[in-house]
């Protein structure tokens, strides 16, 4: 059985060993670890080309596994007290790893439940109703006083210098020229004019410079999206737009 592995799925040699033990549905014991040695080594074969640092950690465990394997293949001779050193340690480490792995899964559940509890936005300066303002330390009275003061000063100055009061205070409409809108407008105009349309014609109806810039940007966008073809016969000649169908 070839064990299909991908390097990035294992964070380390213990993780790999743990997954092999789980996959083979065997107990964590010296004997069963010896059984997965081949699979572990197969994985290392694939790992060869990778990062040496990482590979060396895998090699340490591999040598321990080989030792276990060899010992399990040898007849049960009068083994002396050296026997437990390698295998026993690996078994212990793997068991401990398994223990924390299970704990981390429980913590994961806790985390998911806890993530359903929201707190106040962090870094938020508490809003307070009423006079005491926390963040900017200014209240409405001060705002009104500031306005009176500044307007009084202005009127004085205007009177002395004989200036017209508050010129240009006419209300205006806020406008928001968006590329999306312009793109739609250009596409509509092109649909009406299958023979094409010039940039000059498009910009004729623009109310200000900003709108001309937005028109130009929209043309660039449409050209990029291959929705239109842009043609200029010679330098400084009129720029013509032709719609592409389909």
């Amino acid at each position, binding site marked *: 059985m070839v064990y299909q592995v991908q390097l990035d799925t294992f964070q380390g040699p213990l993780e790999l060993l743990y997954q092999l033990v789980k996959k083979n549905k065997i107990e964590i014991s010296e004997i069963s670890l010896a059984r997965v040695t081949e699979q572990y080594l197969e994985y290392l074969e694939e790992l060869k080309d990778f990062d040496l640092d990482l590979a060396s950690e895998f090699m340490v465990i591999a040598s321990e596994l080989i030792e276990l394997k060899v010992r399990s293949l040898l007849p049960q001779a009068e083994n002396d007290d050296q026997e437990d050193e390698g295998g026993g340690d690996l078994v212990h480490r793997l068991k401990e790893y398994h223990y924390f792995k299970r704990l981390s899964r429980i913590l994961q559940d806790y985390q998911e439940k806890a993530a359903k509890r*929201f707190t106040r936005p962090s870094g938020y300066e508490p809003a307070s109703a*009423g006079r005491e303002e926390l963040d900017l330390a200014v209240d*409405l009275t001060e705002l009104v006083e500031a306005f009176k003061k500044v307007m009084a000063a202005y009127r004085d100055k205007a009177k002395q210098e004989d200036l017209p009061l508050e010129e240009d205070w006419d209300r205006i409409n806020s406008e*928001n020229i968006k590329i999306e809108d312009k793109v739609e407008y250009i596409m509509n105009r092109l649909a009406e004019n299958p023979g094409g349309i010039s940039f000059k014609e498009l910009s004729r109806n623009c109310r200000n410079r*900003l709108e001309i810039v937005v028109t130009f940007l929209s043309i660039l966008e449409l050209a990029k999206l291959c929705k239109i073809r842009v043609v200029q016969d010679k330098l400084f000649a009129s720029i013509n737009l032709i719609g592409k169908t389909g």
Partner: protein
Amino acid sequence: MDVKNLAKIEALLFTADEPVPLKDLARVTDLSPAEVKEHIEVLIREYNKNSHGIMIREYDQSYLFVTKAEYATFIEELHNNRSLAHLSQAALETLAIIAYKQPVTRAEIEEIRGVKAEKTLLTLSKYDLIQELGRKDSIGNPIVYGTTKKFLQHFDLKDLSQLPEIEEEEL
């Protein structure tokens, strides 16, 4: 009136750091704006009681939990490492002009105050007290400024009509 809906709206307002528009509450709760409003009014009455230290404020059809003014000093003491930002006189005057004259251009503000306004406008934008409303349809298409929802919140105004009126002769 469903208590679960009250609780839901309470949780939604609690997690917000700026006023939540009525229509957003309606969208999320699947209630009509009128129903949300009914629920909010129950919450407002409840939190207005003396036993509560927080209350719900309305700002231009949007709602926010705030602490009651009388506990401000305790809150400051608890979070005493928080530095208080101070608005300079220049910033305050500029803000006042924008509040009363909006929409207003930078040139107009500078005309009134007789000094450059660029830095002050940056500061006020940083605190989210003013915003660009668009461009004026005159030569150069200057940007026009107005106040933000945060401005209303900061001065505890329900909407701009609540700005104190100033008699012409006071000026």
